[in-house]
C-alpha cells in the first residue's frame, strides 16, 4: 500500500527561516489537512535547524519521542523518512563532511546514518533517504574503484540500520556525480539488493533527462522510496558540471535561466507524468511511502495544498482502483 | 535645457484592494521615494474607503483636509502632488457604479460631473495636472472608435480643468484603440491644443509597437505629461483586442501568458531608451512632470530605488544632485 507524506524542506529557504515552534506547527498542520499522513525531514546542523538532526530534536522537543508527539498532535501519523547527506558535516559532534567515496570516512557515514535511523525508528519512520555521493562538478571521474567504494559504504550502512527496521534508499539528483559515466546503473549493480534500495525522485530524474517510469519498470525491486515532484525543464546543456552548480544552476537557474526547476504536480508547464509514475508503482505492488516534494517553492503552503488536491483527486483514485 | 521635474506614481504600492490602506504604509512609501530622490508623487483615482488616496472625500477624511495631506507629505520630504490619473470609465461606488464611456456622447455630461470633485481636490492640493484615460480598452469598445466623441469630452474636461488652473493630459494606454502612432495623431489633431495635452507613456508605446522617442519628437509641442517606465514586451499579436485584455493580456490570463509587462529601468530586457526620451524632452520647452511609474512591480520599494539609481547613474545625471540640494518645504 502506498502511504503519502510531504517533504518539510521547502519551508526553509534560508538559514534563518523556519526556526520557531509555531512555524513548525503550522507547516505540519498544512501538510496534514492537505491529505498527507506523514512528513519527511531533512538534514541540518546547528541551533537554527531545530528539525535537522536527532540532537536538535532533543534540544527543542526534549527527545525524538517528544517530537513524535508534536507530529501526532498535528494529526500526522509519522515521520515517514529522513533525508541524510553525509557531506554536510555536523556541528553537533564537530564532524566534517564524510565522503562515501573515501574509505576512511565510512565509519563516520555509518555512525551518522545510524544516529538518524535510531531516531527515525522512534518517530515511526521507515526509510533513510541518503545522498549517495558528491555532485558531478566535485567528482567528474567515476571509475570502478570509486563506485565500489561508494557501494561498500552504503552496503555497510544498510546492514547497520536494517536491525532498526529502517530501509536505506539512495537518492539520485540531477546534479549528482552518478549522472555521468552511467553512474546510477553502475552503483545499482554494485550494491547489495538486500541492503540497499533506491529513492526515485521524479523531478530530479526528469531534470537529468531520465525517465522515472522506465527506472521503476527496470528495477521495481530496488525502489525503496519515491519523492514525487514535477520538473519545469531538462538540464540538456550539461550545466550540472558547472562549479558550484547547487548555487548557480539549481538555485540561480543557470544560463537558460530556469527560474524554478521544480513545480507542483499536474501543472501544465511540468514535464513529469505523475499519474504514470503512480500506475507503475501500483502495477509492481509498491508498498511504502511516497513523499511529495516541492523544494524551491516560493509559496510552500500553496504548493502543499495544490499537491494535496492532486493527490486526492488524481493519484489516490489510481491507487484506490488497484 | 527645459525645466521638467520628476515625480513617482504611487499606484504600484496598491497591489490588492486591501493593501496600502494604513497611513503608516503611505508614510513609508513617501519616505522611500523622498530618500530615493523623488520629491513629488502622482495620485490615482479609485473607489471605496480602502482607496483612501484615490477619492477626494476619503483623502480628506484620513488626513483631516487636503492641507493636512500636503503637510504630511512635506514632513516626509515630498514637496508636491504632481498629478492625478483618472479613468472616466472606471465605475466608482461613490458614483453609484455609473458605467460611462468617453466614446458615448450620452455619457459626457455625467463624466463632467464626475471629474468635478477631483478638480476641486487638485486645486486644494496645489496640483495642476490631471491625466485622463482617453478611451476604454479596444477589446471592450471595438477598434472602430468615434474619435470626435472622445475629443469632444476631453476638450470639455480640459476646459473645466483650465478654469481651475489645471491642465488635462490625455493618457492613451496600450489597450486603447488609439494606441498606435496614427491613433495618437488622430486624437491630437481632433483636439484643441489649448485644452488637451498628450501624456507620453513610454512603456505603453513600446507595448503598442511604437518608438517612444519618435512619438515624443513628433508631438513634442503637445506633450503635457510623461509616464516614464519600461517594458520587456511588444504586443505583437494584438492581444489588446481580446475582450478581457485588462486581465487576459496585462495579467497573463491568456495568449503569451505574460504576467508582468511593466518594469523598472535597468534590466537587460528593457525596451525603452529612457535617456533618449529625456533627451528629446530636454531639448524642447517641456517644463511639466516626468513621472516614474512601476505598476505591476512585486517589490515597490525596490522598483523605486532601482529607478532612482538608473536616473542618477545612466539616464539623467542631474537627477540625484537636484534631489540632494533641495530642503523639504515646511
Amino acid at each position, binding site marked *: 500500500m502506498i502511504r503519502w507524506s510531504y517533504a518539510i524542506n521547502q519551508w526553509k529557504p534560508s538559514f534563518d527561516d523556519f526556526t*520557531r515552534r509555531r512555524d513548525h506547527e503550522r507547516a505540519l498542520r498544512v501538510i496534514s489537512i492537505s491529505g498527507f499522513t506523514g512528513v519527511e525531514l531533512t538534514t541540518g546542523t546547528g541551533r537554527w535547524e531545530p528539525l535537522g538532526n536527532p540532537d536538535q530534536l532533543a534540544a527543542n522537543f526534549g527527545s525524538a519521542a517528544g517530537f513524535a508527539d508534536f507530529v501526532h498532535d498535528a494529526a500526522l501519523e509519522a515521520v515517514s523518512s529522513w533525508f541524510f547527506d553525509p557531506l554536510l558535516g555536523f556541528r553537533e559532534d564537530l564532524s566534517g563532511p564524510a565522503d562515501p567515496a573515501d574509505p576512511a570516512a565510512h565509519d563516520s557515514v555509518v555512525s551518522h546514518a545510524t544516529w538518524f535511523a535510531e531516531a527515525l525508528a522512534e518517530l515511526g519512520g521507515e526509510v533513510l533517504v541518503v545522498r549517495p555521493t558528491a555532485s558531478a562538478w566535485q567528482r567528474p571521474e567515476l571509475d570502478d574503484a570509486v563506485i565500489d567504494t561508494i557501494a561498500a559504504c552504503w552496503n555497510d550502512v544498510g546492514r547497520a540500520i536494517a536491525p532498526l527496521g529502517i530501509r536505506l534508499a539512495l537518492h539520485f539528483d540531477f546534479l549528482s556525480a552518478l549522472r555521468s559515466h552511467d553512474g546510477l546503473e553502475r552503483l545499482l549493480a554494485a550494491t547489495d539488493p538486500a541492503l540497499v534500495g533506491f529513492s526515485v525522485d521524479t523531478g530530479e530524474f526528469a531534470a537529468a533527462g531520465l525517465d522515472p517510469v522506465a527506472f521503476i519498470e527496470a528495477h521495481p525491486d530496488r525502489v525503496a522510496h519515491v519523492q514525487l515532484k514535477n520538473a519545469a525543464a531538462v538540464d540538456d546543456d550539461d550545466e550540472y558540471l558547472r562549479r558550484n552548480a547547487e548555487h548557480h544552476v539549481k538555485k540561480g537557474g543557470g544560463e537558460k535561466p530556469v*527560474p524554478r526547476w521544480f513545480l507542483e504536480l499536474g501543472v501544465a508547464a511540468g514535464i513529469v507524468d505523475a499519474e504514470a509514475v503512480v500506475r507503475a508503482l501500483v502495477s509492481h505492488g509498491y508498498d511504502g511511502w511516497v513523499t511529495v516534494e516541492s523544494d524551491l517553492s516560493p509559496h510552500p503552503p500553496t504548493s502543499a495544498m495544490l499537491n494535496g488536491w492532486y493527490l486526492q483527486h488524481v493519484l489516490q483514485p489510481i491507487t484506490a482502483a488497484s | 535645457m527645459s525645466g521638467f521635474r520628476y515625480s513617482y506614481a504611487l499606484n504600484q504600492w496598491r497591489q490588492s484592494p486591501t493593501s496600502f490602506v494604513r497611513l503608516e504604509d503611505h508614510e513609508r512609501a513617501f519616505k522611500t521615494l523622498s530618500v530615493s530622490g523623488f520629491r513629488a508623487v502622482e495620485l490615482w483615482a479609485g473607489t471605496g474607503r480602502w482607496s483612501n488616496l484615490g477619492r477626494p472625500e476619503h483623502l480628506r477624511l484620513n488626513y483631516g483636509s487636503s492641507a493636512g495631506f500636503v503637510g504630511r507629505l512635506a514632513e516626509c520630504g515630498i514637496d508636491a502632488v504632481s498629478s492625478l490619473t483618472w479613468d472616466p470609465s472606471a465605475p466608482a461606488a461613490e458614483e453609484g457604479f455609473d458605467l460611462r464611456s468617453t466614446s458615448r456622447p450620452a455619457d459626457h455630461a455625467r463624466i463632467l460631473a464626475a471629474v468635478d470633485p477631483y478638480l476641486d481636490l487638485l486645486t486644494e492640493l496645489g496640483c495642476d495636472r490631471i491625466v485622463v484615460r482617453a478611451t476604454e480598452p479596444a477589446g471592450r469598445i471595438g477598434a472602430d472608435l468615434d474619435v470626435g466623441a472622445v475629443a469632444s469630452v476631453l476638450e470639455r474636461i480640459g476646459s473645466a480643468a483650465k478654469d481651475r488652473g489645471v491642465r488635462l493630459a490625455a493618457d492613451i494606454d496600450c489597450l486603447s484603440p488609439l494606441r498606435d502612432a496614427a491613433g495618437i495623431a488622430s486624437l491630437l489633431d481632433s483636439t484643441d491644443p489649448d485644452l488637451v495635452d498628450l501624456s507620453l507613456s513610454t512603456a505603453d508605446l513600446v507595448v503598442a509597437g511604437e518608438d517612444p522617442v519618435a512619438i515624443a519628437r513628433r508631438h513634442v509641442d503637445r506633450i503635457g505629461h510623461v509616464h516614464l517606465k519600461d517594458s520587456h514586451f511588444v504586443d505583437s499579436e494584438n492581444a489588446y483586442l481580446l475582450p478581457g485584455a485588462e486581465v487576459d493580456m496585462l495579467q497573463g490570463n491568456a495568449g503569451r501568458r505574460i504576467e508582468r509587462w511593466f518594469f523598472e529601468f535597468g534590466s537587460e530586457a528593457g525596451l525603452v531608451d529612457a535617456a533618449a526620451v529625456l533627451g528629446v524632452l530636454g531639448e524642447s520647452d517641456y517644463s511639466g512632470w516626468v513621472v516614474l511609474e512601476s505598476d505591476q512591480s512585486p517589490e515597490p520599494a525596490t522598483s523605486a530605488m532601482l529607478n532612482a539609481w538608473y536616473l*542618477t547613474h545612466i539616464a539623467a545625471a542631474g537627477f540625484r544632485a537636484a534631489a540632494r540640494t533641495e530642503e523639504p518645504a515646511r
Partner: protein
Amino acid sequence: MKWSYMDHWRSPSPNGPIDQWQTYDSMDRFLKQVAAVGYDAIDTFDHRYFTIIDQYGSVANYQEFVQERGLERIVNTFHAAAYDQRNYAPHIASTHDNILEDFRVTMDRWSGIQLDNIIVMPATLYYDMEPVTEDKIKTTAELWNKVGAITLDAGVKLTCHHEFFCGIQSKEELDTFYAYTDPALVNLFVDTAQHCIASVDPVEFYEKYADRVTGFHFKDTRHQDLVGDYRRRPDAELMGTTTPRWFHEMGDEGGLVDFEAFMRAVVRNGYDGWLSVEHDKANKLGGDHAESTAIARWYAKNVLEKVAREEAAK
C-alpha cells in the same frame, strides 16, 4: 558624515526568498538600491569570502563591482564565528590557538582591500559561558588582546559587538571586559538595538567608552529582554519568547532607541568614522528589506543629520 549599509538582504525570487549573493543580477540590484538612497558604502561578513572567490575571483574584484555601482568601498567585515566550547570559545584558553589561527587566515584572505574594522561578537552564547565570572571575562580579554595585535598588524582594527545573547552583555560584564582589554588593541562597536534589548542604555554606554568606539550599528528594537531570553536554549535570536522579530530599522514606529540623543553623543565626542546601518532579519513578520533600508536612510538624512548639524553648531 558617511553611512554604510550592513549586508542583510532578502528579496523574492521565482524559487523563494534569496539573498543578494545568489546571482550577479541580485547583487547588482542590491548595490544599486543601497546606493540609490544615499548610502556611501557597505559592510559585509567575512565568511562571504568563499562566494566572493567563486563569483568575483578576488575580494578586490568584488569591491570593484561595488564601486562600479556608485558606492565608495567595503568598510567593515563581521566575523561570524561558530562558537563551540570544544574548539572555539574565547573564555576557554585551550581553544585560543585555534581562534588565533582563524584570524591569521582571515586577515590574509581580506588583505586585498583596506578595511576599517573587523567586527566580532567577543563571547560565546551566554548559556555556553555561564556562570559568567571575572576569570572567564579575563581569559576572554586576553584572547582579544592577542587577536587585536594580529588584525592591527594587517592594518585593521578589532572591534567588539555585544549581541544581547552573548556572554558579555550586562553593564557589569561589559565594564569588566573593557577594563581587561587593551585600548590600543580592542575597540568597541556599539549596536544600539543589542544594548537596548540587554537593558544597557546605548547612549550612556557609548559616552563611557567613546574613546574606544570605532563604529556603530544604527538599529532599533521594540523589545527589551525582560524574561531572560538572552540565556534561552537552544537559541535567543530567532526563537526567543519575547518576540519573533527583535530588530527593526531605525525610523520605524515603536522603536525604543533614542537615536537623536545617540547622534548628539556621537557628534559631541568628535567621532569622525563611518556610521553603519543594520537591520538584520527585517524580513521577519512580513517585512521588506529594501523598504526598511530606505526608511532608515530617510531617517538618517532627514532627522539625524539635522540633529548632528545642530549639535555641531553648539
